[in-house]
């Protein structure tokens, strides 16, 4: 199989990650931070070391700000529902995923908050920045936006928006589902208060584990229960990270995240990004030779795009092309990619797009093979 659906999840997990997950099940299968015996302590240390690695990798100030969740969507819900209060106004981008739009819309329909969508101006970061700036109101509490689009790969001017938020005293949350592990992120330099991560994508970890790094408090919880701290008290503890980690954490998943960071660090985030961008350039150039191909972005470019590319063939529904490739052993994703806002923006809400995303394991021959198939479509 040629797997080009790595924006959904990296389909091939490195040996290092596989071994770490298996080892956690074999050697570290005690409940971390609970029972206090040697094996439990060994598990707790594994969890803590992973927090340390994540804090360092993403330029966060302390390991206790690293929270493990079930997935990036839960991380985003924790931020939006935990930080916003009635009367608050939020600004998001015009390309957001439903992981952002649905909790936001729920809060809005409950008449708790209002929000506006800042237009992303393709290939003009300054104009995109100004879109956000123009929507600021006195009651704006937060800007929450994606780092990179999961449909087009466009990177948003995160550092500029972070600077704006800091200057205006607004909190800044970033959905890094499509960028973490692929694009460099420093919470300190980019002035990000809340970073939401899907480690099963760019960090090659297993599914079922998400990360939230919170540099500022999250006053309200969306889940309460046992945390392994202050057990005598019925009230939910307010100390991160355990405040947001009720119930037993996913230890094998955390072991996988830890190994995933090692894997990406060893390969080098820049080297991985260069490799994947080069493959997309090759793919883009090949698509241009196919009559009737529809492309929605400029040629992929380092720094401007995450390694994601959307296209269509003629006016065909994207699903037909996806099914055609699937029959030939090529895995891509077709449809709306849970981001209808982006498709409204592209004018593809009725047909969706075919999305291609390589990984560190993809090679040039595989890209040539897919282009060959598409030429015969």
């Amino acid at each position, binding site marked *: 199989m040629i797997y080009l659906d790595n924006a959904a999840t990296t389909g091939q997990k490195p040996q290092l990650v596989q071994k770490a997950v298996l080892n956690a099940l074999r050697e570290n299968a005690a409940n971390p931070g609970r029972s206090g015996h040697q094996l439990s302590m060994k598990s707790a240390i594994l969890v803590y070391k992973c927090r340390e690695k994540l804090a360092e990798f993403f330029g966060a100030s302390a390991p206790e700000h690293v929270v493990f969740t079930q997935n990036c969507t839960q991380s985003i819900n924790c931020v939006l529902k935990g930080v916003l209060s009635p009367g608050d106004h939020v600004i998001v981008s015009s390309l957001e995923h439903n992981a952002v739009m649905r909790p936001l819309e729920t809060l809005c329909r409950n008449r708790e908050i209002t929000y506006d969508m800042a237009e992303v101006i393709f290939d003009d970061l300054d104009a995109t920045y100004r879109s956000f700036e123009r929507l600021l109101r006195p009651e704006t509490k937060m800007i929450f936006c994606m780092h990179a689009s999961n449909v087009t790969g466009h990177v948003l001017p995160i550092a500029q928006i972070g600077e704006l938020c800091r200057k205006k005293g607004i909190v800044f949350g970033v959905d890094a589902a499509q960028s973490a592990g692929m694009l460099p992120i420093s919470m300190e330099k980019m002035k990000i208060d809340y970073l939401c991560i899907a480690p099963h994508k760019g960090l090659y970890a297993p599914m079922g584990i998400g990360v939230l790094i919170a540099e500022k408090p999250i006053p309200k919880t969306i889940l309460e229960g046992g945390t392994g701290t202050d057990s005598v008290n019925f009230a939910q503890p307010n100390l991160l990270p*355990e405040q947001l980690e009720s119930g037993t954490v996913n230890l094998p998943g955390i072991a996988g995240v830890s190994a995933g960071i090692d894997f990406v660090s060893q390969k080098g985030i820049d080297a991985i990004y260069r490799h994947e961008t080069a493959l997309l350039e090759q793919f883009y150039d090949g698509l241009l030779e196919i009559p009737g191909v529809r492309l929605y972005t400029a040629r992929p470019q380092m720094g401007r795009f995450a390694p994601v590319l959307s296209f269509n063939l003629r006016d065909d529904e994207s699903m037909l092309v996806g099914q055609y490739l699937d029959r030939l052993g090529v895995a891509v994703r077709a449809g709306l990619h849970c981001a209808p806002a982006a498709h409204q923006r592209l004018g593809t809400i009725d047909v969706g797009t075919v999305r291609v995303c390589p990984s560190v394991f993809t090679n040039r021959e595989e890209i040539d093979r897919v282009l060959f198939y598409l030429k015969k479509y």
Partner: protein
Amino acid sequence: MKRYWIVTGSITYALRGRDILRRAGFKASVERLTAQLGYVGCGYTIVLSGDIRQAEAVLKDAGVKILKIQEAD
């Protein structure tokens, strides 16, 4: 050398505090809390051998939240 219990709010803070103290040259480990410290249920404490005032300053500088300090012996 005197031993102290430094009670933190969580296992995460206990492990972070332990590592910070070790890097600063202290002898430190982490143990489960006992009723002896006035706590029941889950919880962890740093066990320190050394100058408690210095250790406390090091932890506070690093932002480690301390709930209680008690002499162990």
